[in-house]
């Protein structure tokens, strides 16, 4: 009995001591890659750009470490035939272990996106370090590397700046969409839905943007802003969709939370702003006489945000007329978006999925030709039900009397 206990203890001790902490990694040995940029080089290889955090220089993080002079991020580049190779090669230049667990942003260069992003995500999905909740964006007109160079004010980490910009604009304006890696992969594998990814634009020059002086100005020379939506087909970027049509895409995807719709009123352009506070889109698909028919119904609730014309909101008739106008406006937005997508022959709305759910047997027959044959000629019925709930603190604008 005692001998056995002794034996057990020896076994346990030797195992723990010999084990010597294989998977241990100290914080000071890690390079936290907060964003990854992906481009293609001219000879067709991958170029990965790593935006690595300098923890000591992130303001507010510490009182020590000379936060004054340094920049919060450092960029490293590496090329390789595949992503894993590029990533490992990067270690030649970084004094620490490249660590992806906090990579929250993937930036894809526009050129790269045009060639196809299909195979990019396997490494990310496979690596347990990597999170599939990382947001994906496409660098408009630029390479990903250039985008990642820019230093930003307010949110010191450029990656955070981009992510938060995207999330808040999606929430309040609704012309951009934040999609994460998992969603993109799901869309890529699905036959009835194509991915749509937000673009990011660089305003100003890279030269100015990469310097610390950029964030010391009240109006930085180089800035990043969310811009347009990329339509992908078979994993390749085929076109951009912008403005109200972009919002139409979000309406279609049921991603609108809040936004503002401006409508014309009695010859005055853009006279009334309608703030959407709640919206719900439901999509249903059916086969009718061998042809797929999709109907989209949107329900929106909101308040009046601004009125530049004399209008008495206390009159239910006026409200009713206004609602009609708003419905028309929203309807136009989504129809514009659908037309644009049909033009690119890419079902970014997932109408195919809807059909798949409602009629799996028919779907099987047509799914191979869906994007190229059926979707472009798809009949989509759009109905909108918008209602004005409140009018704010005033019921008549002060211009009313005049």
């Amino acid at each position, binding site marked *: 009995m005692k001998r056995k206990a002794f034996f057990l203890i020896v076994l346990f001790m030797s*195992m723990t001591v010999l084990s010597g902490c*294989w998977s241990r990694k100290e914080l000071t040995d890690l390079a936290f890659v907060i964003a990854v940029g992906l481009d293609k080089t001219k000879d067709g290889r991958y170029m990965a750009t790593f935006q690595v955090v300098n923890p000591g220089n992130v303001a507010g993080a510490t009182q020590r470490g000379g936060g004054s002079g340094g920049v919060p991020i450092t960029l490293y580049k590496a090329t390789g035939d595949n992503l894993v190779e590029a990533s490992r090669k990067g270690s030649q230049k970084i004094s620490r272990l490249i660590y992806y667990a906090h990579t929250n942003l993937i930036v894809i260069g526009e050129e790269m996106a045009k060639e196809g992003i299909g195979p990019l995500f396997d490494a990310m999905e496979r690596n347990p370090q990597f*999170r599939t909740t990382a947001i994906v964006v496409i660098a408009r007109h630029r390479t990903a590397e250039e985008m990642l160079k820019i230093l930003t004010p307010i949110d010191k980490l450029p990656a955070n700046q981009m992510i938060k910009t995207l999330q808040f604009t999606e929430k309040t304006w609704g012309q951009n969409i934040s999609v994460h890696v*998992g969603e993109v992969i799901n869309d890529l*594998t699905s036959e009835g839905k194509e991915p749509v990814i937000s673009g990011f634009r660089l305003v100003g020059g890279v030269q100015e943007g990469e310097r610390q002086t950029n964030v010391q100005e009240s109006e930085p020379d180089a800035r990043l802003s969310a811009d347009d939506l990329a339509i992908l087909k078979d994993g390749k970027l085929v076109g951009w969709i912008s403005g109200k049509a972009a919002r139409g895409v979000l309406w279609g995807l049921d991603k609108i939370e809040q936004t503002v719709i401006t409508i014309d009123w009695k010859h005055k352009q853009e006279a009334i702003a309608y703030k959407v506070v709640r919206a719900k889109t439901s999509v249903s698909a059916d086969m009718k006489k061998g042809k797929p028919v999709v109907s989209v119904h949107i329900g929106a609730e909101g308040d009046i945000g601004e009125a530049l014309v004399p209008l008495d909101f206390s009159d239910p008739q006026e409200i009713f007329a206004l609602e009609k106008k708003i419905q028309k406006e929203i309807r136009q937005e989504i129809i514009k978006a659908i037309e644009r997508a049909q033009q690119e022959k890419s079902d970014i709305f997932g109408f195919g999925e809807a059909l*798949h*759910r409602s009629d799996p047997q028919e779907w099987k027959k047509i799914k191979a030709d869906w994007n190229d044959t059926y979707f472009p000629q798809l009949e989509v019925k759009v109905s909108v039900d918008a209602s004005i709930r409140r009018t704010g603190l005033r019921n008549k604008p002060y211009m009313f009397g005049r």
Partner: protein
Amino acid sequence: MEQTKINARQLFVLIVLFEHGSTMVIPLGGEAKQDVWLAILIGMIIGLLLFLVYYRLYLYYPDLPLTGYIQDITGPIFGKIFALVYVLYFLYLVARVLRDFGELLLTFAYPETPLFVLNAIMMLTVMYAVYKGIEVLARTGELFFTLLYVLAISGMILVVAAKLIDIHRLQPVLEEGWRRVFKVVFHQTLYIPFGEIIVFTMLFPYINNPKKTKIVALSAMTLSGINLAIMMTVNVAVLGADAVSRSTFPLLNTIREIQVANFLERLDVFFMIALIIGGFFKIGVFFYAAVIGAAHLFNVKEHHRLVYPLGLASLLLSIAVASNFPEHVKEGVNIATVYIHMPLQIILPVLLLAIAWIRQRM
């Protein structure tokens, strides 16, 4: 043989923990895509029928474990051989689950650590518990049962709060018809985890209130089946059927998706706790069955004398059972089900019951 007894509640808890075991982290029935819940529930119902077979046998021999009455039914020579087969089967299952467990842990958190070390630590913990006896295992179960439920419920709340569930992902139901569902049932969900309930035939003699055994075991299996179905359904609703069938641990992916209030995120530790607790009880019950089976077979008075040798053997077996993870999975799904689980979980018990029944009549 141990003289201790466990009560009905403890049996219930042990069965639930055992059935969840390592199954809750793997893509159980993922091949059935959106219909995974059907595959699990049907597997459960057939599993319940199987249990009734085992229970009938137990009623014939209420004081003997499986390895005991098998000798009585088939005679001393065949009986000894069959009993040995069952002991080896349980040991093999210990090794299999241990390997599963080690591989999962290795892939997701400890890529640089040797498999042997991870397995050895787990096995030592199991050996300690089994050395202390079934009572201790059952009591530990009672405590962790609560913990696991707290985790599951809070996890569920978080998944809902993070607005991850998309019911559309569960449609269309029965896209490929019943065939795909039944294929999954008879290749996986029936045997793992429901058919594995056969291991409890080794524990039935220890129950202090035998009248309740049937209802307790049936309700525990039903609860587990429903839980597992819910869990896999949530996985599908969050990740999509395709991603579930492709991933090694759908539950981990689901947990990783959770982002609530910018702070409740990266909750992988939930997964880890569930994995370790589930693995522990599954391995523990199998190992206990193997140990008392062997003690019964070889007339060893104190069963815990066998804990060390059998523990080391199954530890080594867990390393040797396959050379890589895909091979291990292939072995588990294609070979083990047809050549090991089916004969030992279904065919042999049914034959035993038939013989016992005929004898009773004569």
